[in-house]
């Protein structure tokens, strides 16, 4: 049984009478102890998905209209606010993108970690546990008495991690955890994440637009485009032999390669929007076919490859893959 299973999730934001589709159809799963990367451009719906996973969609505007989310076998798609409050933190905790704004500026780090400990370990020696958690994320014990503004960016992200780990989660959802950090600090945090996963046997869903980060840290990868999961599978396999033209284009752009004219490789056109008929990448796709505009392809998996993609180009090898 997977720890987290998202099945054909559809999510819309209501504003007034209009509503915007943020996620058209997203399917992914995370097994116990596994690291899965969720990759996509800004606007692909990956952050909305992350918030939906913890029941943190903006109240009154974010709405799941179809599909389901289940955590450790429990369907949480339509959980009430009170039930979410009981569930959050364990088995799933989350760290966010901007470590400064994600910490309360007028509360000491130790207190913020302590809240999470107290919430999930009722009998714990809180002070001792705070010390352990700081040690776990490699922060000096003195940080417990510090305020967020007194720490560096990397230290703040470690503090956020300590808060999340205070919940003793089975799955850590990390939404762009390194994006706001400089390159050397990014590497430190990624190393720490890998180390923690090894020590705590914790599963991780790493959300990023950075393919390098995902390639480095994840066993499996899911690629999202315009509110749809378009390709998924084993990281090495997906990155070496991508099936979906979008994945190929993303990889080419991600490698900071210059083309023959000496320009950076980019993907032509604008990021597609969720909703509508056919494949959302069709307007930008270099290998587009007439039927792409009409019909969204199902998932195809090429022979001998440990991944699947939703693209008509792969129809010739019709061994359908389960997500």
């Amino acid at each position, binding site marked *: 049984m997977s720890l987290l299973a998202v099945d054909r999730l559809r999510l819309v934001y209501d504003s007034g009478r209009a509503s915007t589709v943020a996620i058209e159809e997203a399917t992914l799963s995370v097994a116990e102890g596994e690291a899965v990367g969720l990759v996509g451009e800004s606007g692909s719906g990956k952050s909305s998905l992350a*918030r939906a996973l*913890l029941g*943190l969609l903006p109240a009154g505007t974010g709405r799941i209209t179809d599909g389901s989310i289940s955590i450790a076998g429990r369907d949480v798609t339509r959980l009430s*606010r009170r039930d979410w*409050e*009981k*569930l*959050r*933190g*364990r088995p799933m*905790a*989350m760290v*966010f*993108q*901007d470590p400064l*704004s*994600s*910490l*309360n*500026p*007028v*509360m000491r780090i130790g207190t*913020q970690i302590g*809240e*999470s400990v107290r*919430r*999930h370990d009722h009998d714990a020696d809180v002070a001792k546990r705070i010390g352990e958690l700081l040690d776990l994320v*490699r*922060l*000096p014990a*003195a*940080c417990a008495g*510090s*305020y967020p*503004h*007194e*720490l*560096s960016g*990397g*230290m703040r992200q*470690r503090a*956020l991690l300590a*808060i*999340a780990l*205070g*919940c003793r989660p089975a799955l850590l959802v990390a939404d762009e955890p390194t994006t706001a950090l400089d390159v050397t600090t990014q590497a*430190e945090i990624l*190393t*720490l994440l890998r180390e923690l996963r090894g020590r705590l046997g914790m599963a991780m869903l790493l959300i990023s637009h950075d393919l390098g980060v995902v390639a480095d840290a994840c066993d499996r990868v899911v690629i999202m485009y315009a509110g749809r999961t378009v390709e998924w599978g084993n990281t090495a396999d997906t990155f070496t032999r991508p099936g979906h033209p979008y994945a190929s284009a993303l990889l080419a752009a991600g490698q900071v390669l210059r083309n023959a004219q000496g320009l950076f490789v980019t993907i032509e056109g604008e990021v597609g929007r969720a909703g509508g008929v056919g494949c959302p990448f069709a307007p930008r796709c270099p290998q587009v076919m007439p039927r792409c505009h009409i019909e969204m392809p199902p998932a195809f998996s090429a022979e001998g490859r440990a991944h699947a993609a939703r693209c008509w180009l792969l129809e010739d090898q019709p061994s359908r893959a389960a997500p």
Partner: protein
Amino acid sequence: MLRFLLMRLLWAAPIVLAIAVLGFLLLHLVRGDPVTALIGDFPAPPEYVARVRADFGLDQPLGTQLWLYLVNLAHGNLGFSFANRLPVLTLVLDRARITLLLMIPALVAASTLGVAMALAAAPRAGSGTDATITGLSLLGHAVPVFWLAQLLVMAFAVQLHWMPASGMISLRNAPTGWGAVMDFLWHLVLPMTCITIYYVAVVARVARAAVVELLHKDFVLTGMAKGLTRRRVLWRHILPNALIPVVTVVGYSFGSSLTGAILTETVFAWPGLGSLFVSSIASRDYPVMQGIFLFSAVAVVVANILTDFVYWLVDPRLHRNRRVGAANA
């Protein structure tokens, strides 16, 4: 902390001096001769007028008069009130104390109530509850104070006889001991309500805006993600942050409220600084008017220093910067 306070006091000194000079010069713009005002309508011989003029130093050049005034101020001598037969300083400080007895409870009540209203309204921003709370608080602010005060008197004093209509203590059959305290509190209810209603909107509006903004901060998500209830996030995380702007408005209101209660004090015959100001205008008691002018200006300066100090206390970003050594990773 000491350095911070010293710096603020150092800055306050020239401001207070400038206020004193300004107050002095303003009085010289007032039409009419103080000597005529002092002597009254009796036909006085010119020698007598000249003597009075010399006695008060009014025959000296303006610069010398200003210098004398400032030297007297430095000695705590604000002049003498002929109407009240008391030194101005004693009089003003005594009345200010009475105004504070009214203003402090009113501002404390307004702050508490305003913040509570904001906490109730903001999470439901845009809803009926929010509109009702915001609307009511604005109505309270928009209603003229003297009208509201009279309504309160008519309803609770004249019709219902629940509270006394005016004054600070009962003059006849004055109780003693705890009875006196109760008697004072009883007199306090109506004027305090009046001022509270006025200031509650100011606090509620600022606090509501702060809470609405804070609700969208990422640390709220962090709090929710670690499993805290919405109530706990609101009280432990949002409230302390929302208090920072509230301190600013309350501090500002406090400084201006010392003389701002003129209308309320007049309606309820509360013997504070506001009443004294009104009576000193009526009796052309210039030294008292000037004393109140100086006192209230100094009060605003002091209130601002206190506000900055409290602000500094509640926001660790302003007073703490102890960087911890880098992680050993």
